């Protein structure tokens, strides 16, 4: 995919340089993020894989990070752009802390700031190639929202990015309910992540679950899900397809 904007200032060299600075396609990407609101806050799950095209090149990438005191950010898509976003947010949180006045940025503010950033970059044809999930708790209010690389932004009780939209959200629509306990929330997320593991080829079996409550953020140690490959359908998967091997 190429996005070229015709600029005719007569300077081919400068234009070429400027063009090479814009994001044209992603290189190292993370796959789905799945997140749900539960009784005490938000639970978010992601695997630790960074794909380089179809190669699963990096297997220790943390795609969820705490932002300030009240927010948790998860990202899928280009990893270097996620790191850039973390730098923006670092500066934002730093300036907020420097005021030292008892006011602090909550998840709603961070989500809206990110929406502005993503949308503005999209307008300049130089997107940050990510879909971001922002969850948090402030003053007892739980918040969960999402921003895409083109600046589409919304809040919901459960969100997912990438393949998660297609595989995880139907499960969540059926089984999510308000005031899930921590254990039930984790079980639900693991159910979604297991389906993604079976069906998303860029997923790896090494995931983390992060939780954010009024007290703060905890990101779990990486762990693996139990999988079962002895289903009859997996034994001879191409049995019905003529011409396959």
């Amino acid at each position, binding site marked *: 995919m190429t996005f070229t904007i015709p600029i005719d200032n007569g300077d081919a060299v400068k234009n070429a340089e400027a063009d090479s600075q814009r994001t044209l396609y992603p290189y190292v990407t993370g796959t789905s993020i799945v997140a749900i609101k539960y009784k005490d806050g938000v639970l978010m799950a992601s695997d630790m894989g960074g794909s380089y095209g179809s190669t699963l090149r990096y297997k220790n990438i943390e795609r969820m990070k705490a932002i300030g005191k009240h927010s948790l950010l998860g990202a899928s898509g280009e990893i270097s752009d996620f790191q850039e976003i973390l730098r923006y947010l670092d500066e934002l949180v730093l300036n907020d802390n420097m*005021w030292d*006045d*008892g*006011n*602090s*940025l*909550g998840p*709603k*503010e961070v989500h*809206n*700031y990110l929406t*502005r950033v993503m949308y503005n970059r999209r307008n300049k044809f130089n997107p940050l190639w990510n879909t971001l999930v922002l969850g948090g708790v402030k003053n007892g209010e739980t918040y969960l929202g999402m921003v895409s690389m083109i600046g589409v932004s919304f809040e919901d009780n459960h969100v997912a990015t990438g393949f998660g939209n297609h595989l995880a959200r139907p499960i969540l629509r059926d089984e999510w309910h308000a005031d899930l306990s921590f254990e039930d929330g984790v079980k639900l997320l693991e159910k979604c992540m297991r389906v993604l593991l079976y069906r998303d080829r860029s997923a790896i079996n090494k995931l983390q679950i992060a939780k954010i409550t009024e007290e703060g953020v905890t990101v779990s140690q990486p762990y693996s899900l139990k999988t079962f490959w002895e289903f009859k359908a997996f034994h001879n998967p191409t049995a019905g397809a003529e011409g396959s091997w």
Partner: protein
Amino acid sequence: MFRNQYDTDVTTWSPTGRLFQVEYAMEAVKQGSAAVGLRSRSHVVLASVNKAQSELSSHQRKIFKVDDHIGVAIAGLTADGRVLSRYMRSESINHSFTYESPLPVGRLVVRLADKAQVCTQRSWKRPYGVGLLVGGLDESGAHLYYNCPSGNYFEYEAFAIGSRSQAAKTYLERRFESFKESSREDLIKDAILAIRETLQGETLKSSLCTVSVLGVDEPFHFLDQESIQKVIDTFEKVAEEEEDGGEAQAEADAPVEQGGAGDQDVAPMEM
């Protein structure tokens, strides 16, 4: 304060460490008509005296809404006040747009103060000739600040600025300890009473003052003339009974005025 050789521009210090141009700017605030502000834990009331240039003209607007949760009352050069109000509205709405969240008033006040400071340190500028009483909300509740032309700002429980504000300040000093826990209605009443002090005997009518309220669950708005008159009616009658004791005390309290002999010294651009 008299003319001296160090007062020509704002970038000249006096040997005693004063910037006279800044101090002269603060004098301009004292010439304007009075404005008072009070706050409780959850509400801020701003009130001002309606001064008209002449009988033919309408009165100057001295209280401005900056946002649903911030209001400002000014005294001094109203043109400067109008420009600064526009700046405050702009800052507030830009913050709301980016963060979908109200700008904490404490942060707005610092930006305003920094803007005023710039004018005290440039040879091609002059200080703003207006004092601002900024009332607003942030996460910790209701706050009242006073921004002065020097670039300083202070937080107050209650304050009054402009001509004859000393009388209002005296009244407020007597009662400020109760404001924190005051009800909204009592706060409004105290504001109007403070305004009355600045009128020095002139009968208080609702047409003479403007009152505005904002609170934790109440967006900034002005009180209409009827509501103000109702509040005035509750104490004007009591005041008539107390006339002998009360009035004598009020006159003893109001010292010789800073800021001129009254109306005839007010320059046309100051209100």
